[in-house]
């Protein structure tokens, strides 16, 4: 049980680091990068995607793992007498509810960038970009809540689980 508790603590730590990086990266993207490629599509998209020279990855480096780290951390806390399970459960539930939206957004943005590159960008796609930008801010707000829930889980890790018997 001690190994399980240490593993739960480790994965909670990893998930927290991942969610912090995820949140910061997406805020930076929304503030400093999205305004560049969404200014005058498709020309601005073509300008953004020209000569990328990327050495490190961001989106593929954080997106699958952030959700998995939270899930593993929560699963490890299930049988432990720790107050962090409730907070982690909430965080993981919200994250996995957000996941289909995130996958849809990644698919949509990939389609828009491909359309701009292949010259098949249509004027009605501007509405999709506007919707995507708003949803991007929504996911950022949700990620901020998820990060805070992870931190509350860290804060309550050494507290005993709040059972009905203990509350009464």
């Amino acid at each position, binding site marked *: 049980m001690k190994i399980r508790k240490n593993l739960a603590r480790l994965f909670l730590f990893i998930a*927290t680091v991942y969610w912090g990086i995820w949140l910061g990266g997406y805020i930076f993207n929304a503030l400093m990068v999205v305004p560049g490629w969404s200014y005058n599509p498709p020309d601005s998209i073509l300008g953004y995607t020209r000569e990328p020279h990327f050495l490190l990855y961001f989106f593929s480096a954080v997106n699958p793992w952030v959700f998995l780290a939270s899930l593993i951390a929560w699963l490890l806390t299930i049988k432990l007498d720790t107050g962090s399970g409730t907070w982690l459960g909430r965080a993981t539930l919200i994250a996995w509810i957000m996941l289909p939206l995130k996958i849809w957004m990644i698919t949509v943005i990939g389609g828009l960038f491909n359309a701009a590159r292949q010259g098949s960008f249509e004027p009605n796609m501007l509405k999709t970009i506007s919707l995507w930008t708003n949803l991007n801010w929504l996911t950022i707000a949700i990620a901020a809540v998820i990060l805070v829930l992870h931190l509350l889980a860290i804060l309550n890790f050494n507290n005993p689980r709040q059972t009905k018997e203990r509350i009464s």
Partner: protein
Amino acid sequence: MRKQIASFLLIAAVVIWGIWCGGQYFNEARVTPKRLSNPPDSVVAYNAIPMKGELPFFFPFNPLIFIVSLAAAIAAWRWARQSRKWLALSTIIGFCVSLILILYLAPLIWSIDREAGNIPAAEIIARADAWKFGNRIRLIVEMFGFVCSIIALRVWSMESNEIQSVAASMAVGNQMVIMENTGGRCENS
């Protein structure tokens, strides 16, 4: 009440550190390779990209990593024992990172932006290389600062719980002594 404020500030410090490090990592992964891929031409081309609704990232978050870490350290110090070193480390790193950005890295990148195309390309390339090297060192130090802030929260929560339970058991012990001395009558002041 003060303990709740300390908890809130410790959480806020980790959130700010996370946002800052995530933003810097994104900058290093997605923006710098494009902006400084072939200076000075790539710098001129990047700066010519028009923006719609761009908002600042560096200014609001950079001083906050130090200010919020300092506030959290001050508020949490009373209950801290082993976590003091982590609280101090994250605050000191926040201070150093803010100072290095203000005194060295920001003026250097501004000079690259301002003078690209106006001074010899070799000079811009040298400055860009110096900035990229400095930025990577800073990113590594910042990641350590972020990790320190999480460790500070974890260790502090453990210690403050222990102190609270010791205080609670001492209070129960005192109550029992009072009850024994007063023959079972307990007077709540």
